[in-house]
């Protein structure tokens, strides 16, 4: 049983959350006990706190190529997505009620637009191809006169596919609608520039790039009307009331600064490790497919479907070997539904059940990858030996 200590501990679930870098933690610490004022206060305690969140605002704006006053701090990527989708839709209601999203959006976008649909908005969900890519022309074909908002994610956390946002933007702009992108999985990991992408709003979260949980932001282009989710005070220009989470915002800012500095070296290192992992696993385990796009994918992301077996069982056995990963199988989701992303990509349910998702980070090294490539194949063998689907497959193969 799981009592024996694993030889090694390998965390490969960085899209679930990253650890906080020591420099980020260092930057945050003074803002619990030393500089603890409320940024809205008019005394010197407040001034100090206000000064640091404005510094963080500039750091985050720098990461995405926007202006500091366009950054709205939120508590999570989910909140940023909700604020974007609901706030922009309600802000544009005089122009129309039609919204377009892709089928592979995060639930914080999908469920937000479903809530809007119940409130009288109209929704079109555009499909993706087998790589998880949205076709910009398909978006264009679905734009109507009353389309006010299109929301397509920048990169998908489950399959790593990076969407052609700039291409989608051209179609959306021609039609005069707004474009939001959920860039939570991508920001801090690959270059993200709001002007190059041509978006009107963009969500990001610190815990995807070595900042703390509880710190995220929505960038919204100047002069775009955004209705707040909550009523309250004047924080964040009235767009997001509530006392600012100063230490977390400082951490987000520092993580953004480090991401700008280290992005090229991180991307190079992680994409090499990722390719080693992809090649290693595809060579060692037959009847395994790489999910998502081969090249248009996040540099730290490798996702697979291993046929004839189920993801949670693999995850449990990997965990016993000290390896942490995710799966999009029905059994691993609390709702017991197969990943909507894999299903939207046309992957059959029984294959989607074998979903396994690795995401790498700065603390990983080659030995970690070697360890996974050594430990996973016997786990797959063991589960296939008890799988009726594999037994059937072998029988049919023999004829």
């Amino acid at each position, binding site marked *: 049983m799981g009592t024996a200590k694993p030889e090694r501990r390998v965390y490969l679930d960085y899209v679930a959350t990253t650890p906080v870098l020591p420099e980020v933690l260092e930057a945050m610490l003074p803002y619990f006990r030393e500089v603890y004022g409320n940024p809205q206060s008019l005394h010197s305690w407040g001034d100090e706190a206000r000064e640091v969140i404005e510094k963080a605002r500039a750091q985050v704006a720098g990461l995405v190529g926007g202006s500091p006053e366009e950054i709205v701090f939120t508590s999570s990527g989910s909140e940023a997505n909700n604020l974007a989708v609901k706030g922009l839709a309600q802000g544009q209601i005089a122009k129309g009620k039609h919204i377009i999203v892709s089928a592979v959006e995060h639930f914080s976008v999908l469920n937000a637009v479903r809530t809007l649909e119940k409130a009288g908005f109209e929704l079109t969900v555009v499909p993706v191809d087998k790589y998880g890519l949205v076709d910009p022309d398909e978006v264009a074909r679905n734009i109507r006169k009353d389309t006010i908002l299109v929301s397509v994610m920048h990169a998908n956390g489950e399959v790593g596919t990076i969407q052609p946002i700039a291409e989608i933007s051209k179609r959306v702009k021609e039609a005069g609608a707004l474009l939001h992108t959920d860039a939570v999985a991508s920001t801090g990991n690959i270059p993200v520039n709001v002007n190059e992408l041509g978006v009107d709003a963009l969500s990001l979260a610190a815990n995807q790039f070595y900042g703390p949980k509880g710190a995220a932001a929505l960038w919204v282009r100047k002069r775009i009307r955004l209705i707040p989710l909550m009523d309250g005070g004047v924080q964040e220009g009235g767009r997001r009331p509530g006392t600012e989470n100063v230490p977390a915002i400082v951490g987000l800012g520092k993580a953004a600064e480090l991401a700008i500095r280290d992005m090229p070296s991180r991307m190079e290192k992680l994409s090499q490790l990722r390719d080693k992992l992809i090649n290693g696993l595809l060579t060692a385990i037959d009847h395994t497919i790489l999910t998502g796009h081969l090249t248009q994918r996040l540099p730290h992301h490798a996702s697979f479907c291993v046929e004839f077996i*189920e993801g*949670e069982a693999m995850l449990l056995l990997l965990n016993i070997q000290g390896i942490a990963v995710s799966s999009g199988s029905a059994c691993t989701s609390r709702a017991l539904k197969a990943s909507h992303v894999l299903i939207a990509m046309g992957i059959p349910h*029984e294959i989607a*059940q074998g979903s396994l998702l690795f995401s790498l980070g700065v603390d990983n090294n080659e030995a970690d990858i070697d360890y996974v490539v050594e430990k996973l194949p016997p786990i797959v063998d063991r589960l296939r030996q*008890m*799988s*009726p*689907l*594999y*037994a059937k497959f072998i029988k049919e193969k023999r004829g």
Partner: protein
Amino acid sequence: MPMYSEKVMDHFMNPRNVGEIKDADGIGEEGNPICGDMMTFYIKVKDNRLEDVKFQTFGCGAAVAVSSMVSEMAKGKTLEEALEITPSLVAQELEGLPKNKYHCSNLGAQALRKAIRDYAQKKGIKIEGLEEKGEEHEEGEES
């Protein structure tokens, strides 16, 4: 807190009676891969007793543990006794299953019942308790 009880993890890590019986007297299949779990039970019957029980399972940790537990509970029992094994008894023996896993993973008893029915049909015999209780899903209980 771990999701599964120690008993579930033990049966998942060291499943009893995995495999196929080539000349099985009865075979029962339950579940389907779309819901995530699928189990096949093979039985060998001698003098109205389950002389051997084996299974194959596609599914999560709970599904494997359930299959293993059912095979262990059933082995050596008379056919009538084996039909008394219910999903809730299996869950009890496993020291509980997570509530959300109860319905989809706890199919072992039904798969075993189907194997016994397959045997009865092949032999043209009637077994007490085979038809009365259907494959009803019982209400889940929290572990």
